[in-house]
């Protein structure tokens, strides 16, 4: 009999855990921003790479809209300029990503062009390039305006003259990154007037939740008003 009771308790606990896991797992509103790099063959003369061919990692991104949206322009600019250091998925200059370069370029900071003793038209490549996407990425930035400022004034790495990247290009790249982080809605054009609105790592309450919350506030205020009226009638 005791064994039977114990089994029932264990089953109930197990059932409760399954329900909790279902509630907190499936219902979580936080998007999974982790990156799973898809390895594909880019150099057939480099047999050590075992990759799955789904698409070419160095292909030019296809625009979502016609004419291309700001996001599309940012994706193309990222592909054209940012991808060597920051990776095709914003993973940073990882070993896996460098392997895509092939044996000749994968240790580029040892080359003449990107070592500490690079020629005037080269530049020193940092050993560590921070990831732009993923749960640990862009931790120092609060919103789109900050991200834009750093992109515009510090990027690309080899040219900080502020003339390399136009404002429109910097906004486009910022829009691309914010969309990748899931904080810039589709169809919104990013600019100085709204960039600070889009906050990284912050899940703002949706418009659906704001109106009911306001209606609840009206109700609470009405209760307070009734309380104050009753307080007045009790006084001599």
């Amino acid at each position, binding site marked *: 009999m005791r064994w039977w009771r114990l089994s029932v308790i264990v089953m109930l606990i197990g059932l409760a855990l399954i329900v909790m896991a279902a509630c907190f797992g499936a219902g979580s509103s936080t998007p999974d921003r982790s990156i799973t790099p898809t390895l594909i063959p880019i150099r057939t003369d480099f047999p050590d790479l075992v990759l799955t061919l789904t698409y070419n990692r160095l292909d030019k991104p296809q625009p979502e809209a016609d004419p291309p949206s700001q996001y599309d322009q940012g994706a193309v600019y990222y592909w054209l300029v940012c991808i060597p250091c920051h990776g095709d998925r914003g993973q940073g200059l990882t070993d896996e990503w460098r392997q895509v370069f092939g044996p000749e370029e994968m240790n580029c900071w040892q080359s003449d062009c990107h070592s500490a003793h690079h020629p005037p038209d080269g530049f020193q490549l940092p050993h560590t390039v921070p990831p732009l996407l993923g749960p640990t990425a862009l931790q120092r930035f609060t919103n789109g305006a900050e991200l834009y400022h750093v992109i515009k004034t510090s990027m690309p790495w080899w040219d900080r003259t502020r003339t390399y990247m136009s404002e429109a290009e910097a906004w486009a790249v910022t829009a691309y990154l914010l969309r990748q982080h899931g904080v810039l809605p589709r169809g919104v054009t990013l*600019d100085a007037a709204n960039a600070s*609105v889009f906050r990284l790592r912050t899940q703002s309450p949706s418009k659906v939740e*704001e109106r009911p919350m306001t209606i609840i*506030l*009206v109700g609470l205020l009405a209760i307070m008003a009734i309380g104050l009226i009753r307080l*007045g009638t009790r006084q001599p």
Partner: protein
Amino acid sequence: MKHSSFFHHLHPVTIPEREARYRYTFGLGGLSVFLFIVLAVTGALELFYYVPSLDGANRSVQAITFLVPFGWLVRGLHYWAAQAMVVTVVLHLLRVVLTGAYKRPRRFNWLLGLSLLVFVLLLDFTGFVLRWDTDIEWALLVGTNLLKTIPLIGPALYGTAVGGQQINPDTIVRFYGWHIFGLALVAFGVMIWHAFRVRRDGGISSLSVRSRSSSDTLSPAHTPRISRNELVRREVLGAIIATIILLILTLVFPPSIGPVGDFKQLPEQATAPWFFRWVQQLLRWGDPLLMGVVIPIGLLVVLALVPYLIDRHEQGVARWFNREGRAAQIVVLLMVVVIIGLTLIGVLQ
């Protein structure tokens, strides 16, 4: 409730019970102060996201409305508090006229109150322009051009208001500066002065402090009074009800925001903000200087002269439609009827 709190000490210890009733003041002065506080708080929140530039103004208002968490609510409260404040201030003026509360020794405070009415209208006007959408075309083009019609000082006034001899990128910065610093901050100071003068002039106008010659004067010692705790309770109740109304207005009638305006020429359908529709209607009938400047300023001068020329009696304070102030009541009510009539004609056209 702590009796020694700062908030309580802003109030007199007691006030006359008769004049503390809602149907005497309707709480209109207190409501106006509360709306000013709502405007200051919501305005400060809007400043975090508002970009006062030619490219950014309209887009940032759109961002506040559609993207910022609870931005629509903050903007809606700011908008409706601003509209409500015009109504409460005008009704407060009417209450003061109809109860003879402008009479000596409150004549100077009447002038301070009138200046606050002007501040409220200008604050609404400049705040309206800050949206920088297609709806502001009349206000921006006709409203500011009226300044140019003033002889001698007109062009200089226009330049000071809009930052040049025509609408330009600096105009938005000028209106931003006028709205927040040049008007709101100064209005706050005058509002404090106005409230101070109420206390200085003997508190709320009441029968107990009427002229000694009046037969129905009550001695202050025998006048029923309420404590400031009760006064604060009524004020908080009024503020909560006002907040509920503002929230419901925001939920049901959210303020509009149109696309960015093209201010090169005035469209035929351009309309003034509702509180200046009567001026727009006057402008359709005659010379801009006369209709848009002289008449509005003339009406203001007439209002200013109410306690100095139209009704110099000291009797009749704190009595609705008192006989001594009949001339002032007729003049002001006539003025209000004409303004409402012109507004209705403008709306119907």
